[in-house]
């Protein structure tokens, strides 16, 4: 492969995926209009965009509803994940107790829990969905934070002991800064999981108006282009969460170095 100048490489980095996306969409459109695939089976990109424009206000409000559930779940789940990881790293007993519980939490399928929680909190409550997003966020944040808290180098530990540093000082100067990148890895994974969980949880009852609810009603009434339009909104929402956490991570890490 020919080497590119840094500037050309940056441009290529942006253009390449855009071009690939345009190609796929073009082929898809051709397949439906020229290739004779039934528009009912596979809506064309043009008809999906049509629906996005037509239902724009409803899309925005649906994304806000689902996004708010995901955000609340992400924040509370991450905070609990960090808190319990701290406790587990400080106390052996909690560490031993939490290991199997977290392993169990990690394998709970959202589909299994959503109907139960929706019934538990009532038909007009968003709490069940927020709880599911929180639960999905908790696991990766907990696991990554706990691992990060154990990455302190022996030489740093020796050094802090030679300074006769207090436990709080060791935590603040060495343990937490070492763990920070791991915490952010956990939150980054959790951000996508929170959106997916909040969205999927809407398939199983509870108030309508979120992206998940609208995808399932659109599909149920055979409005496939509209269902696809809401799926696109879900992708955009997930990407927004991912990019926001990435930006937060960059901001915090840049302040350090």
């Amino acid at each position: 492969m020919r080497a590119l100048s840094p500037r050309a490489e940056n441009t290529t980095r942006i253009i390449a995926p855009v071009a690939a996306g345009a190609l796929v969409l073009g082929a898809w459109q051709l397949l439906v209009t020229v290739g004779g695939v039934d528009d009912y089976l596979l809506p064309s990109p043009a008809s999906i965009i049509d629906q996005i424009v037509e239902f724009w206000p409803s899309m925005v409000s649906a994304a806000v509803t689902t996004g708010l559930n995901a955000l609340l779940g992400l924040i509370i789940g991450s905070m609990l994940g960090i808190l319990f990881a701290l406790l587990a790293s400080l106390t052996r007993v909690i560490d031993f107790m939490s290991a199997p519980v977290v392993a169990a939490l990690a394998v709970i399928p959202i589909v299994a829990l959503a109907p139960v929680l929706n019934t538990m909190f009532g038909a007009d409550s968003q709490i069940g969905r927020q709880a599911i997003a929180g639960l999905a966020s908790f696991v990766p944040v907990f696991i990554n934070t706990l691992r990060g808290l154990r990455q302190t180098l022996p030489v740093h530990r020796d050094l802090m002991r030679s300074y006769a540093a207090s436990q709080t000082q060791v935590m603040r100067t060495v343990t937490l800064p070492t763990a920070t990148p791991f915490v952010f890895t956990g939150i980054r994974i959790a951000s996508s999981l929170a959106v997916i969980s909040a969205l999927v949880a809407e398939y199983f009852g509870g108030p309508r108006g979120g992206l998940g609810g609208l995808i399932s009603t659109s599909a149920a009434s055979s409005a496939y282009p509209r269902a696809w339009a809401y799926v696109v909104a879900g992708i955009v929402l997930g990407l927004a969460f991912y990019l926001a956490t990435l930006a937060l991570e960059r901001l915090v890490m840049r302040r350090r170095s």
Partner: protein
Amino acid sequence: MTSEAVTITDVDKTFETRSGQVSALQGINLTVAAGEFVSLIGPSGCGKSTLMRLIADLDTPTSGTVQVFGKSASHARRDQDYGIAFQQAGLLPWRTVAGNIELPLALHGIGSRQRKERVAELIDLVGLSEFADRFPDQLSGGMQQRVAIARALAEKPALLLMDEPFGALDEMTRERMQTELVRICAETKAAVVFVTHSIPEAAFLSDRVVVMSPRPGRVQEIIPMRLGAARTEGLREEHAFFDMVTAVREALHQGSPVPTGPRGMETR
């Protein structure tokens, strides 16, 4: 304060391992006078690092006592009577050079203005004035080690403990660092306990060289280096220096002189 920086009396150290007890040190007796430079040398596994860790109170002896300036090792550690440097520089990568050097001062509640003054002095001492705001990963290994030494000197300790601080450096850097260390020691008048496995390094730097034997670690011989106070680059090519290198090498071989360097030892 007594005139002895370190007094080690009848120290044994045994480690519990899965395959039973391993005796790392046996019957160690050693004193280091204030301001004296003492090297611990011996093959891998002779317990020289363990001995230094006992002085630093990073480990405790199984039996016997370690005193630092007439106090117990743990008391001396809490009083911050020593500065320490390891083979790895062990800098905090998220702090700048200045931030790393001021770490012990900050932890012990020294005011920010005094801290700044002291850090400026120290950075000057190790010749890194232009790099105060750099981060460790922007420095070479030798520069990182100099930052670590500046950090060890931050609180003007009367005792400096160094565990193979130049072990990971290339030959040229290593010799330059040795010359710098000699200068720094002359300025600070600190006693030094220096762990190394390089014979010329021990001979060049030390007032006395403690030769240790492995499994269990024992003091085999203590050799005074009769090289005078002027430890300059020229010394490396003098006969007296070669004689001392030979003396240490032969002690390591326990009276059976071998023309080549002993196995497992560096001869640089």
